[in-house]
């Protein structure tokens, strides 16, 4: 049988993490809760919502107190029709995995069922809503997780969220000479099939036209 993490371990770790975060940050208005996935094995994860100015403190706490050692991905989302407080949102997905350096010629073979405490793998999701406007900005966490570096570059490049304090920010996926202020995943940029049910309404594709046809993109 393959080793695995049991549902009990997972629930226990999620509750412990939320308890820890609530004790430390509930006064500051950071909310943390245990949420269960609705697909797959329906495991629990921790969802945190905080303000941009609290984010560095929360990130350091996660890194150093809760042992979150992996910044998996950073997702920026543009909500042009959202509320004034949530015109943009940045979602961080972080993981805690039991990874330590080992001595040469040895290895560390964890048995999932026997892990306890901060060694139990756990998934963290951090939402940071940003106010509507032209200059969404969150503090950079480049120096907390090195892996956040290129994730932040990508999020700025594609979505246009500014990571204040980020060193050496540059285009990574778009061409280096893209015009300043061009961030293709913002919702005002449409590709020609956007909001268009072409499979059913227009199988031949005659009506497909880019909405900004004729204008310089």
């Amino acid at each position: 049988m393959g080793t695995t993490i049991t549902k009990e371990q997972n629930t226990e770790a999620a509750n412990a993490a939320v308890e820890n975060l609530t004790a430390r940050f509930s006064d500051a208005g950071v909310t943390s809760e245990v949420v269960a996935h609705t697909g797959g094995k329906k495991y629990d994860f921790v969802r945190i919502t905080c303000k941009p100015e609290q984010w560095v403190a929360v990130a350091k706490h996660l890194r150093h107190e809760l042992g979150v050692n992996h910044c998996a991905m950073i997702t920026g989302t543009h909500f042009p029709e959202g509320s004034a407080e949530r015109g943009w949102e940045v979602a961080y997905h972080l993981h805690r995995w039991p990874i330590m350096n080992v001595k040469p010629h040895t290895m560390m073979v964890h048995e999932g069922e026997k892990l306890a405490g901060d060694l139990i793998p756990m998934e963290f999701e951090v939402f940071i809503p940003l106010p509507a406007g032209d200059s969404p900005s969150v503090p950079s966490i480049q120096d907390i997780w090195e892996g956040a570096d290129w994730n932040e570059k990508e999020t700025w490049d594609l979505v246009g969220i500014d990571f204040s304090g980020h060193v050496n920010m540059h285009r990574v996926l778009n061409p280096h000479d893209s015009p300043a202020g061009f961030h293709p995943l913002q919702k005002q940029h449409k590709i020609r099939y956007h909001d268009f049910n072409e499979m059913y309404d227009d199988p031949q594709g005659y009506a497909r036209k880019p909405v900004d046809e004729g204008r310089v993109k």
Partner: protein
Amino acid sequence: MAEMWITMGPQHPMTHGLWTLRVKVDGETVTDTEAELGYIHRGVEKICEARDFTQITPYCDRLCYVSAMTWSHSYVMAAEDLLEAEVPERAEYIRLMAAELQRLASHLMWLGAFGPDIGNLTLMTWCLRDREMFLDLLQELGGSRMHYNYQRIGGVKRDIPIGWADRMKAKIKLFEHRINEYEMLLDESTIWLVRLQGVGYATAEDQINAGVTGPNIRAAGVNTDARWTNPYSVYDQVDWEPAVEKPTSVKGADCYDRYRVRMEEMRQSCKMLLDAIEKIPGGSNTHYQPEDEMILTKAPSRAPEGATGFSTYECTRGVSNFYLQGGGEGRGKHPYRVSIRSPMFITIPYVAKTMIGYKVADIPAIMGSFDPCIGETDR
């Protein structure tokens, strides 16, 4: 001697795709590096916003042309999380087998491309010969050789054909001997050992902090693997152990360890496949019709307002994540935002920095040992 910048790529045998490595050299020694990506950025995330949840699967196949099955599997897991779909157990077994066959094919493609980097051209022909066996098996499932479009939200497209189980078992048994042949070819080759041992050290903690995952971490001596740390599918029911290698130095794993761990991982995949085909519910030699409830559950096509879906998946090169935001009624059957984490996008800048201090001739060995794939990197 004066330092100078040289540009390797976008067309260079070392790159395994289209990207540029700018290297600052002092004589033969690398003193600084800079990775440039984005040559084949297709905007998959933007395209997906204009597609139905079901129409996105083929785009995810095309993220990585070497391991398409694992990417579409990762996507449908996130979509099932978003749409609250259930998957029948037989379909989970079929998905597991498809993903592990894909892992074998992908690791063979890696080994086949890595061999010529090191100077062993025989390896390319051997690996592509054996990869063909697994592509044939996957073709029987999905209908094509590389981009299968086989996973469905809530199950799989088709059941395994009659006789597939026997063909698979025969090929796996043959391949287990072939792995031994590879090891005889490589582990006793002085050139192979000299080029790989003592080159490209990376420790486990550095790598995880930099976002490197998958076999590259396991080579550094820790058996972390999303297949057991973030359980999905039926990996807890089949017989396997995560491949793990003992690093050779306090500086961590070298290129040779990363090669060893992938060979071991192929053995584990074989073990898993042979076990899964025995345990599959409904029998290994039965064929259910498409859309039978044994292999597919009908999934809702519209996402609830404010719902999100997330998947953590052990892809062949590391952990891939999908994050989906559903838009409620206003967006119809389309997601509001699709975000993809590609393991190589984070790994390549890290690897570029690990090359500092080694010789220019070590660059292909270091880069190749991390198994880059540019299709998923640039998305």
